[in-house]
């Protein structure tokens, strides 16, 4: 959250909610409708992301817009705005570069990376380059300590950075290129990203094929495969079999568990959904759950090494 000691917001004018058009109003109505009836205020955080997606930061207009929609005072909305770090008080660049300088990343090089990028951009913390392309900030823990040091661009992860790689990313951004995040979808603009954070995702933004993993994420499970380690197995009740692909039907045997017997036998409720029993299952099929699964190393279609998708 934002330091309350330095929290100020520019309310030098009343704000004009009419600058937001019909499409924005329709999007706002959709966001409000996601919460239970009468609980529209729950949509305030998403709505503030929405107004940022239009204006690049929270302006008096955005505050007035949210206050109008939720029947709050502007003071109530401004109080919320000043509490949260992600609501920006000044125009934000096309790309927001956030460098983790919390203890773990900071001590593994994040402090030096942050200093180098400020120098390269010629601006300080929370400032934007004169051409409006890049805003830089230092971030608190981004929950990627196993990839330290990390930075994000418009909140997409660039893992395991060095001064050189970070400088390279920023150079690309400055020249209008969009390097590929290590984990995350292809970069979009800060405003487009704020629309997604507000909760408005289209199929492209959902990027179902974008990489989600990397070496640290898979370190334990790969080692388990190497060592032949598995969790103790259990059998599963397949009397209501899920739809399975043929590949999944070659499951390995695991001993039935006595604990299974303790479960009360209960007639299954009739179901109306269209599920079909799969063919060819053994009398007592057991679970693939029991073993670590093949890693992406053996799956060329899904490379696990983020380096292969790295844009620098």
């Amino acid at each position, binding site marked *: 959250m934002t330091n309350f000691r330095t929290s100020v917001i520019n309310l030098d004018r009343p704000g004009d909610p009419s600058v937001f058009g019909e499409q924005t109003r329709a999007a706002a109505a959709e966001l409000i409708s996601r919460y239970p009836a009468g609980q529209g205020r729950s949509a305030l955080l998403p709505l503030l992301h929405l107004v940022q997606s239009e204006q690049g930061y929270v302006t008096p207009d955005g505050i007035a817009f949210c206050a109008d929609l939720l029947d709050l005072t502007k003071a109530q909305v401004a109080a919320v705005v000043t509490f949260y*770090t992600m609501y920006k008080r000044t125009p934000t660049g096309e790309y927001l570069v956030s460098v983790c300088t919390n203890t773990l990343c900071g001590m593994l090089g994040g402090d030096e990376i942050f200093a180098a990028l400020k120098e390269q951009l010629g601006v300080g913390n929370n400032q934007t380059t004169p051409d409006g392309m890049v805003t830089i900030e230092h971030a608190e823990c981004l929950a990627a*300590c196993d990839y330290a040091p990390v930075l*994000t661009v418009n909140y997409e992860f660039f893992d395991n950075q060095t001064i050189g790689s970070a400088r390279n990313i920023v150079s690309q951004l400055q020249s209008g290129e969009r390097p590929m995040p290590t984990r995350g979808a292809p970069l979009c603009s800060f405003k487009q990203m704020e629309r997604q954070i507000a909760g408005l995702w289209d199929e492209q933004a959902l990027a179902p094929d974008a990489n989600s993993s990397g070496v*640290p994420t898979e370190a*334990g499970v790969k080692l388990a495969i190497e060592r032949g380690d598995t969790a103790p197995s259990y059998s599963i009740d397949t009397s209501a079999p899920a739809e399975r692909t043929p590949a999944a039907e070659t499951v390995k045997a695991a001993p039935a568990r006595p604990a299974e017997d303790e479960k009360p036998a209960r007639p299954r409720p009739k179901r109306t959904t269209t599920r079909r029993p799969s063919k060819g299952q053994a009398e007592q099929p057991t679970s*693939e759950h029991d073993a670590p699964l093949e890693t992406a190393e053996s799956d060329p279609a899904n490379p696990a090494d983020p380096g292969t998708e790295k844009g620098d």
Partner: protein
Amino acid sequence: MSLTPVLTKRFGTAQPWKIENYERLDGYAGLRQALTLLPDELIALVKDSNLRGRGGAGFPTGMKWQFIPQPKAGEPSKPHYVVINADEGEPGTCRDLPLMMNDPHSMIEGIIIACYAVRAEYAFVYIRGEAVHAIRRVVGAVNEARAKGYLGKNVLGSGFDCEIVVHAGAGAYICGEETALLDSLEGRRGQPRLKPPFPATNGLYDAPTVVNNVGTLASVPYIVLGGADWYKALGPEGSPGTSIYSLSGRVANPGQYEAPMGTTLRELIGLAGGMSRGKDLKFWTPGGASCPLLTTEHLDLPLDFDSVVKAGSMNGTSAVMIFDEDDCVVRAVKKWSEFFEHESCGKCTPCREGTYWYVGIYDRLENGEGTEEDLDTLLDLSDNILGRSFCALGDGATSSVSSSIKYFRDEYLAHVEGHGCPHTATRTLAGAH
């Protein structure tokens, strides 16, 4: 000691976040089984498994579920809610994000089971706003689950309705505190509420609410499938199940290592390929920045809920940050203190002012202007913060300060006597690898 991937077992498989891949690997089998049980039987099962919350406090999940008042037929009742705390931001903690990025359906399956058990029709996943890729994967997974009939009206023909709303935060660590999270979810400043009343009776919209962590709910489908005894047998007495140890810092291969609760740091460092730069271990945290530091004397401490408390720390989020002899403990604690000062919501004076004072003193120490008296002031401040605030943020801020002075007083004194950090020479190359 062996690795026991349960929650992480799909990591690294082909696009495990897609529902067809999840289903192929037994996905939603737990939900199908859960729907054959009565809700109270499910609560009893989770209680019997002794699943303890993975968010840091280790509270028994089944008890949380049981605390939700269930009126008899015909009695008036408020709606019930399930809220998922996915506001992962505790320094060092990096488990829930990879879990949601790679295997979001296991959490979603757990949410649906939890909703069925506590008789809630609405669940809210509160994900920190910066975690866009995790939000993306969870939104995609919710859409897929709805299209397949696992969510929405009449889940799998059971007559039970369930809806999940994915809600992004806006950058505030304090919203990982459950009552601050609820205030934030209601569209307010995220400041903790006084407890009692607890969320189980007066939670979201003043209605009965279960607040569970991502890893907690992701464990539920496996408990339904495997049974309470299977789950209990995965870990030591009192700390059932596996733990995802998130190793970071000065180890050769940092990452997510899922092993039984009660694994030791010595074993974990071995799994991670040893220390990363040939230096010896110096200090570490067993569960994030809010847990008191431990040292080489704790290498063989079993990392489970109860043993770590006996050693004077906390299991927390099992986020193990590892530092070596070239790392300055004063610098590390300074940075954590700056974090807590930045993230203190300002509601309680001891936390707000105390963390502010911490930072001023650590600045002095690092700049070579510290005095021996500053150490006493730090300890005095800690005494005045600990236990004197609504929530655990202030308590957490004192952990690294007090424990580092306890174990490394000499290093603090070296900062005083040497007028600055004795490690400066060894840190300049840090970013140049």
